């Protein structure tokens, strides 16, 4: 009896505080948001009873002005930007990961550091730097003007393009590192076997190399797609009204024009896509036999 009590006491003492903290300050706030989504916005911008699904019809685009696709467009645009970012970072990450993995052993730490250090610099700094690079009359804008992408004396930001650029830049290291981890462990004997079967170029990569890097790629996709979908800093600094993403639309409902129930409903939409995506993704990973994609 005494032993059981002591066990319970020990369990409560160790696991208790952390779990209580996270329950109180993370689960409870999330539940509160879920509740707010079903309330109505009173004239003072405060959530009020009764419980309705009004906020969700607002997400779908219905307002007292009739229907408009604006909100759904923002959700769609966020999904697209997350997709672009994931594809672009993967395309850039592969050559870089191979480059580092095939460099002489003593240079690898330095090369890795070159990838990691920029991501240690605060995201606000990393993003506003692009405001300067994409501003009007810089060399990059001159090139864009010369190629006919831009009218004279215009900058490349704010725009959807600038947002894509910022997202790819910010999340690239989170794609490079897990892919590098897989490439470093690559079994080159398998690749040689594929070569011995007279496969060439693309097919060596397709059948010999790529399957071995899938776990890293999957981890990279999770680490890039989720934060890119929920991005706030990048679209806020580099996007205009027409490049707004879901994170900014949510933030707006809690600051400048408060409509908490609407904001909370948008939050649930974001969480739904995030967790839905994770579930689908885990199924895919299992089918590809890549296990938990060495994420944790």
């Amino acid at each position: 009896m005494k032993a059981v009590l002591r066990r319970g006491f020990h369990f409560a003492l160790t696991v208790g505080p952390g779990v209580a903290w996270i329950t109180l300050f993370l689960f409870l706030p999330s539940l509160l948001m879920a509740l707010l989504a079903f309330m109505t916005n009173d004239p003072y911008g405060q959530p009020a009873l009764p419980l309705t699904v009004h906020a969700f019809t607002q997400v779908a685009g219905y307002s007292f002005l009739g229907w408009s696709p604006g909100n759904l467009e923002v959700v769609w645009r966020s999904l697209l930007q997350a997709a672009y970012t994931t594809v672009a970072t993967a395309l850039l990450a592969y050559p870089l990961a191979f480059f580092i993995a095939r460099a002489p052993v003593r240079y690898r730490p330095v090369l890795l550091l070159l990838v990691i250090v920029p991501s240690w610099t605060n995201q606000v700094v990393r993003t506003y730097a692009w405001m300067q690079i994409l501003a009007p009359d810089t060399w990059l804008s001159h090139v864009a003007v010369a190629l006919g992408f831009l009218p004279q004396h215009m900058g490349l930001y704010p725009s959807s393009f600038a947002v894509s650029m910022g997202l790819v830049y910010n999340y690239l290291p989170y794609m490079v590192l897990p892919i590098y981890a897989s490439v470093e462990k690559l079994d080159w004997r398998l690749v040689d076997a594929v070569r011995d079967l007279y496969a060439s170029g693309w097919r060596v990569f397709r059948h010999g190399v790529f399957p071995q890097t899938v776990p890293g790629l999957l981890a990279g996709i999770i680490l890039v797609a989720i934060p890119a979908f929920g991005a706030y800093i990048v679209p806020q600094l580099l996007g205009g009204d027409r490049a707004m993403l879901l994170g900014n639309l949510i933030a707006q409902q809690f600051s400048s024009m408060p409509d908490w129930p609407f904001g909370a409903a948008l939050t649930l939409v974001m969480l739904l896509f995030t967790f839905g995506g994770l579930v689908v993704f885990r199924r895919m990973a299992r089918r590809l036999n890549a296990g938990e994609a060495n994420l944790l």
Partner: protein
Amino acid sequence: MRRASAIDRAMQGMAIATLAFLWLPLFVVVAFSFEPEAAAVHLTGFTFDWYERVWQQGGMLHALFRSLELGLLSAAAGTVLGALLAVGLHRYRGRGFAILALIVYLPIVMPDVIYGISQMVFFNYMHRFIGWPSAGLVTMGIAHVSFQIPYVALVVYARLVGLDRNLVHAAADLYASPLKSLYAFWLPVLKPALIAGFLLAFTLSLDDFVISFFTSGPGSVTLPIYIWGSIARHGVTPQTNAIASLMIGAVLLVALAQTFFQARRHGYLSSHGQPSA
């Protein structure tokens, strides 16, 4: 064979271009912090004036101290809670694993906008009903601790898993009082993991902007919030570049010191990417 080597060279070129892409913005920020003309788009000269102004204005130093205060206090609390959690879950492994997975996954996969805003709303209601806490360092600290706990728990848990189980049983069998086994066994054994966890928690706190931004209040302006505010008020100015350059310099120093020490210890660098905003 010639074709293959051309492809190889193209890939190498792309890799080097990608590295340049990663560093270009940092170079631009540092270069323009020395540019005398405030609104220049091309470099025209060299000056230290902007650094002097940053120093004179004092707001930045104040923000830096807030960042350090918040980072140290939250990391201390986060390390204690995270380490306890890891110890408990390790000892009651069967029962705890599902909870660990849930607790560890939620803060990592939840987009930080949602994280910050739901806490802001929650603290707002709490303040309205029980008069505590008001938005400021306290709310920011609470928010930071809640995202640090899982990361510290992961680091400490990894160390516990690598530990010899017999050692743990021996420590439990020798009739030491819990307090005695804590300082005679657990603390020395877990010291490296505790230090690593604390440093990770501290870095996460310094690096965070979004969650801090939504849970902050008057008088709790940290360095990233200070930079954000100055961009919102004045746009990008040479002073922002000067502050940012100082941050980049500090990060570089830390990175170099770390590589140096690790190169001396194991001869290679361990890469720990931290998934954050």
